[in-house]
């Protein structure tokens, strides 16, 4: 509720600045003009949104799958962890801005490079948070499981995996927040459709309001994804609500 008031206040200030500040509407359109663009260009925005949204969905899906799988594999097998952990960090150290055009050259202008770039960005927070959380399972609990003759797999299934789930989902939340940025970068690097492509096109056409409208749609999508995971987290992990939160 308070968040909504803050947004409204910011929009009001922006509207006032745009109308009274003497800024060219082609440089900074007022919120009202962006709203108009949202309505008038809804067909265009929607079609491009569908493209970007499916890139993001596939990219996040791949990142979650690979991230969890990698974390579990590295958790179970220490030599593999020693051998590939620097590589894992390296995957995040690559500046996406530089790699994106190269991937486009390699994978073409279609969906593939976008999905690859988003997956590359999102993989890291998922894998690292999950791996960390798996390793931080309560040692006494693991000891207890040993006295119950638990196998390595039982210990994972009954203690480590559920204990790591909250952190894994937090990693996924960070991932979705950056996934949308990744999608736009990927589209900047070479594409024929998508919201990033639309922004790139609208600015030289002096359709600034349309570009801003695309930004609004992207931001709304990122927020939506984040809260969807938040809800999933509460549904899946009801015990963290009663124990961890006030």
């Amino acid at each position: 509720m308070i968040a909504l008031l803050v947004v409204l206040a910011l929009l009001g200030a922006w509207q006032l600045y745009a109308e009274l500040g003497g800024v060219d509407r082609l440089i900074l359109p007022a919120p009202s003009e962006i709203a108009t663009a949202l309505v008038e260009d809804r067909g265009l925005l929607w079609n491009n949104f569908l493209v970007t949204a499916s890139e993001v969905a596939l990219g996040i899906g791949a990142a979650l799958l690979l991230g969890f799988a990698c974390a579990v594999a590295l958790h179970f097998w220490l030599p593999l962890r020693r051998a590939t952990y620097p590589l894992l960090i390296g995957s995040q150290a690559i500046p996406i801005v530089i790699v994106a055009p190269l991937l486009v050259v390699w994978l073409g202008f279609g969906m593939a490079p976008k999905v690859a770039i988003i997956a590359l960005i999102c993989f890291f927070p998922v894998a690292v948070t999950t791996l960390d959380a798996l390793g931080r399972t309560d040692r006494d609990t693991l000891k207890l499981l040993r006295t119950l003759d638990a196998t390595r797999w039982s210990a994972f299934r009954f203690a480590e995996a559920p204990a790591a789930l909250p952190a894994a989902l937090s990693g996924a939340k960070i991932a979705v927040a950056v996934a949308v940025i990744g999608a736009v970068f990927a589209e900047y690097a070479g594409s024929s459709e998508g919201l990033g492509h639309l922004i790139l096109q609208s600015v030289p056409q002096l359709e600034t309001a349309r570009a801003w409208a695309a930004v609004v749609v992207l931001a709304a999508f990122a927020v939506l994804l984040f809260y969807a995971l938040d809800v999933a987290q509460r549904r899946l992990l009801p015990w963290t609500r009663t124990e961890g939160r006030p």
Partner: protein
Amino acid sequence: MPFQTETPAARRPHPPGARGVRVESATRRFGDVTAVEALSLSVAPGEVVAVVGPSGCGKSTLLELVCGLSEPDDGVVEAGPAALMPQRDLLLPWASALDNAALPLRVRGVSKADARAAAAPVFAELGLAGFEGARPSELSGGMRQRVAFLRTLLAGKPVLCLDEPFAALDALSRADMQRWLADALGREPRTVLLVTHDVEEAVVLADRVAVLSPRPGRVVAELPVPLPRPRSVTDRAFVALRERALEALGS
């Protein structure tokens, strides 16, 4: 001090295949710290032995040795398969009380439905009926300890190692839980090694009390408790035994 051979526990029925515990001059060091030194202690099958001693005297180390979680640096530790009830209840916060109690079965590969079916009767018998679906965070400290004890019981091991099971409870619920545990052990007799810093608790529950010295821990006295159950803490013989145990602890 010679062991008393005819303890009340020896006459109690015990599950088939039950085995006792034999610790023979065991020493365990952690770096420069010697946790227990030349400690000798035996528990006959079906006997309840309480180990009391000052904080940090190596009581928990003794239990880890008996449970096979660590090996002695010197000496011998022989024990039947032992289940540990740790000081913290260590219930899984995501699982219901019944599922927590049934964990030992699940870990051995029993299906969820079968594990629940097997745990439910004992669960109810030990006064937990109605709390099957409750998460640990919804249970009181005493109830959590009951679930933790039941989990230990359902591990199906002849030897139970209880590490200060009621240390975190207030005096009233502790007395309550001691009665409950005495009753539970009456129904499900096991060989029990109970570690506690509470002399009264030791005398209430045990057939024999072993007193440990400050670190490095070794047994300085063993007191048989030949009192009938249930025991009253105001009984004269009880008070006399408690005094003797306290004296041994202070010496």
